[in-house]
């Protein structure tokens, strides 16, 4: 191949339509709109970055897919350095098998990355969730290789809103809270154009965690002071 073309392809600067080696198989996210946005669902293996403030529903977006996959594959789900205590009751109520979930709390960010890499490439985990900001390009690449070796997906939650455009992530999403649920924007999707945006409604799963919808025939009036 032409060396310039080869170089461009190597740096992912050439868009090659829908022909991408890692984008063939997908697993459903459990939400039709999200599947459509992600061209069929979550990637079979790879590193997915999710930028979101903690607590807006970023984990709930993943839970149906993670639960379904745990039942299909009987492999482990690993959570590394969660920002607060993971509540087993919620997960058990959703149908998760708690003995197949592992929570790892390493002392340093380096050890957290090391654990993530070990879990990903071991082949006995289907996904690892990692809460970590400021990852470097070479760290992502190592995780990517490990994920490929172990057929697992690494989800990285970060709170920083600054652009990390150069990171070689398979998929990068930004989440914003929204009246109906959460707003999901695709910042980067390897092999596909970026920029898709949906509003995900999770009312059918968590009716209490939605703002009450006002009926169409109700007109809101401003409060008037009595008297």
């Amino acid at each position: 191949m032409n060396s310039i073309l080869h170089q461009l392809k190597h740096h992912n600067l050439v868009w090659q339509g829908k022909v991408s080696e890692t984008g063939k198989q997908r697993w459903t996210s459990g939400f039709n709109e999200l599947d459509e946005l992600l061209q069929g669902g979550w990637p079979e293996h790879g590193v997915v970055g999710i930028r979101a403030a903690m607590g807006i529903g970023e984990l709930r977006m993943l839970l149906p897919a993670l639960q379904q996959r745990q039942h299909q594959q009987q492999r482990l789900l690993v959570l590394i350095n969660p920002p607060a205590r993971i509540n087993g009751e919620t997960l058990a109520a959703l149908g998760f098998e708690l003995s197949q979930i592992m929570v790892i709390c390493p002392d340093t960010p380096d050890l957290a990355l090391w654990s993530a890499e070990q879990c990903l490439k071991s082949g006995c985990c289907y996904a690892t969730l990692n809460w970590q900001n400021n990852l470097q390009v070479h760290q992502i690449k190592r995780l990517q290789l490990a994920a490929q070796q172990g057929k697992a997906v690494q989800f990285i939650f970060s709170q920083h809103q600054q652009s990390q455009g150069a990171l070689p992530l398979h998929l990068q999403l930004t989440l914003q809270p929204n009246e109906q649920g959460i707003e999901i924007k695709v910042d980067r999707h390897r092999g596909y154009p970026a920029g898709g945006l949906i509003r995900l409604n999770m009312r059918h799963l968590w009716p209490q965690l939605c703002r009450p919808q006002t009926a169409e025939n109700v007109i809101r009036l401003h409060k008037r002071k009595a008297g």
Partner: protein
Amino acid sequence: MQQLWLYLHFPRLHLNSLYLGNQAPVVVVDSQRHDILQVNPEADRFGIEVGMGLATAALLCGTLQVHPYQQSSEINRLKSLARELYNYTSDICLYPPNGLLLRVSPMLSLYQGLDRYWQCISHFISEQNLDYQFATGHSPLSARLLAKQGWNQVSENKQTHLQILSNYPISCGDISTRQQQQLSRLGIQRFEQLFSLPLAQIAQRFDIELVNYIGRLKGELQHPHEFYLPPARFYEYIELLYEIHNQQRLIPPLQKLFSQLQTFLYQRNKVCHQVDITLIQRDKQALSIALHSAQGEYQAANWLSLAELKLERLELAAPVIAMSIASDKLFASNLSSQDLFEGEQGTMSPLQLLSLLQARLGQGAISSPAVANDFRPEKACIYDMPLQHHHLPEKLQSMRPLLLLPHPKPLRDKVNILYGPERLNSGWWDDDPILRDYFIAVDKQGRWCWIFRQANQQWYLHGFFS
């Protein structure tokens, strides 16, 4: 069954285990009496002999390199030899500081004869670049005596051993000087004469030590031995012949150590994730370097390239005089398989992964979420032993936040209550009762919070519906 033993005597073990990079005359000297103990061939050419005084030797050769004798260094080398010999023969006994005793008789059926056995052993030792003397014997002590005298032959015949042994003077054996004098007064100079006396008569005239010695030498009395067991960890120490100032010059001796590590790991079908290098500096504290390999390595070349990277960044404050490498935790290798279409695939079991993680992070760092049978959320939400089945309570509360703060925090931000209340009044049976009204609320940043109000109208934040 008749016993057969083989003794290997290494007269210049200290000298041989020094890292000899150049061909200079070197001697090993007793640090107290200043006698020469070991001489290399280059020094021998100058006429330097064992037993000579240091001053005489220095006169004979001006460029002589002198090393003080250290028994510990010989013993370490002996242990590492035993470790490698363990691949060829099962029963090894250490005779510190410079001898190894091998029990040959159980190995003969495996090797189909003494000749083949000796071929394997001698091939191994000659690869080690060691000077050695050897001999077989029908008892451990006879093999040792013959080897030290440099008989350098192997034989299965007991009579041959006794015949050769008979001709040696008794001063060759491990008999105390006082008893040697006593024996010589009786006109006994050789083992031949000693053997012709019945043991019972010797027992009448001499103490039990001599009787034991002769009985064991002839193979008539039992001689218990403690056999060598290979260690579970790897440790190797090497002393450098010259001081090294430059990091790049550290590579060749390190390579030697890593290749020993490789053999060690390869034979056990293990890999290690960490290797600790210790560089001992002159007049300075030893430098420790830890090399990590996330996937686990055994190959010397891979460890060496990692070490090179570390050494590049290293500043040597003082010259290095010795180095060692150690590896404590070994793991089973072959935990990934090569798939024709998919490439390398991980095939660890969950428990293997767990032990790997626990080895590096500690036992406490890994857990699985569990549910305790309690209505109080902070008591119901616990972490337990990883990967074990737990009993779940009959009824699970579904509207609980996924992320729970271990300790509720006072609510500071303004929130919008959307759902609730849910009253929890529990824990009256122990000293930690609660009376709380829980609400689901959204704060300004759109976060779904789980908040509660206590009876005293204080508001707290307890979790997030992430």
